[in-house]
């Protein structure tokens, strides 16, 4: 997935930083701990801004370039925060052949949020996601983890109406 550099200002709190330092301390000396550290850091902040990567670099001794290399490689690591309502439409094969591409386009159109980005007010983020493994319910979308299955283009309006 293509990634954009962080576009929002960093508002990390002292508590978040303390939690992050505790996570780094917990993994000290562990082989191959960078992925778990980044995953837990993302749970704390909701995304991985460069400021957070710099803290991890300073504490682990791994260069910030290398950390950025890892963070930007994996699609689960977010360089920008999700919207208040994170909408993901599955573009796995089973969903795609049953028209999930049209559903995704419709959502993007109705919310006026380009695919793969967050609305200016931070309310909605719309993304295409890899196979969710719920192929029996195809096409599938999730809003903040809530799953909607067997979708058609005409269902989009009613679903979005629940998230205002």
């Amino acid at each position: 997935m293509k990634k954009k550099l962080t576009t929002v200002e960093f508002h990390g709190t002292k508590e978040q930083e303390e939690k992050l330092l505790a996570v780094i301390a917990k993994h000290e000396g562990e082989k191959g701990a960078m992925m778990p550290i980044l995953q837990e850091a993302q749970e704390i902040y909701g995304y991985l801004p460069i400021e957070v990567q710099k803290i991890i670099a300073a504490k682990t001794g791994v260069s910030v370039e290398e950390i950025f290399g890892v963070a930007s490689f994996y699609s689960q690591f977010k360089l920008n925060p999700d919207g208040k309502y994170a909408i993901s439409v599955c573009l796995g094969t089973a969903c795609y052949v049953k028209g999930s591409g049209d559903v995704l386009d419709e959502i993007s159109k109705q919310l006026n949020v380009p695919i793969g980005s967050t609305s200016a007010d931070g309310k909605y983020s719309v993304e295409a996601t890899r196979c969710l493994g719920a192929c029996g319910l195809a096409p599938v979308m999730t809003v903040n983890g809530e799953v909607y299955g067997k979708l058609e283009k005409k269902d989009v309006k009613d679903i979005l109406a629940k998230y205002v």
Partner: protein
Amino acid sequence: MSEKACGTGVQTSLNDTVFYKTQRRLALRNCGIIDPESIDEYIAMDGYKALGKVLTEMTPDGVIDEILKSGLRGRGGAGFPTGMKWKFASGNRGNVQKYVCCNADEGDPGAFMDRSVLEGDPHAVIEAMAIAAYAIGSDQGYIYVRAEYPIAVKRLQIAIEQAKKYGLLGKNIFGTDFNFDLSIRLGAGAFVCGEETALMTSIEGNRGEPRPRPPFPAIKGLFGKPTILNNVETYANIPQIILNGADWFASIGTEKSKGTKVFALGGKIKNTGLVEVPMGTTLRHIIEEIGGGIPNGKKFKAAQTGGPSGGCIPASHIDTPIDYDNLLAIGSMMGSGGLIVMDEDNCMVDIARFFLDFTVDESCGKCTPCRVGTKRLMEILDKIISGNGEMEDLDRLEELANYIKSASLCGLGQTAPNPVLSTMRYFRDEYIAHIVDKKCPAGVCKKLVRYEIDPEKCIGCGMCAKNCPASTIVRTNYTAPGHKLASMEIKQENCVKCGACMTNCKFNAITKG
């Protein structure tokens, strides 16, 4: 489930239904039967008995021989003999650190059998990994799971804790001097991490890029140490092979592909879900009998197996008995077992583009043939689906596809052109229709679709014009016999091909072609 799947009349058991009758559940035997969060229920189903047997009655080499004899091949895609893999890593036991890994990074879109095993029978995987560790002489294992499967991760964590509490993981298992510990590592959404060397690089905490082989992981794998990596479904078969014997397992399936295979049946099919059948079952049986056929009276067009690495199997090959070698021979592959059924409304050029879009996105960028080659392939496909294709493009596609296959570093690139090659092989006429006639026969490729109003059927109500976002539908001067209003017409130059006119026409006067 449809009526056909249930049959008619009274059913005496679930196993009598058409959906289950001809399935043979080995890898999925406990899924949905036992409580996956209870180790006692697993033990009640002979769980950990195989581990007990190997530790107390068998030598490590004896275990490897048994797996070799069973003919079990890797269920993750390539079909490499599992016993062989173990044998390669078995040298120098006790003197070097070795690792046992489980590939649960089920990235193949449309496949979800590994998720099902992890969520429904996590102890089977843990038991099998301990058996593998004993066979090669390892004391540490890693399970690499996709982060997209939170329930699977949770149940694995519970299962590992329970196994530790029961002394089935940890030190001196079954009172022997065998020690084995297990950790979970979460993937982070990179398809390439399903490739063995990339997965290991990722566990090490780096960008998940593959490494050249040799050295093979059995010699130099995770953290530079001898490592074996097997898929979830492969592991799920191991305890039963140990308990029932290699001959029992080898009696199921075809000559070169033993046992069963789980397929994730999805797409345009009545009964979707996981289907476990003996190797050698025909595609027709899976689709028409177990799957109940294609819904809405549509015609079967193709079945896609092997995900982005596989190909599309046309109706002419529907009677092929499915095993590793037959699928390769018809230009597809087993892959992890995704089986997506497509009907006449799916455009094969569009499907090829869909998979390429996926591989372009997921190519890690390390080697040029894959990074640049897949992108160029997709550009040619884009040219074709937008109506600018020329016949020479077909030769270019084929030539480039073969270069990418032979020159890429890892399995992702080596198989990425398969969807293009297989659709060109079986659906060449569809490519030609896009190039020469500038038409998409299935009506999928938007730029080639043309909506038209039949003036004889149109009653002139104007609903189409009212709903047209491009305001490109106008009234003509022609009134068909028997109608009161003049018919409507679509001015093609401004049409955005949204299809709103067709959806809103109550008189079926609009056609798409």
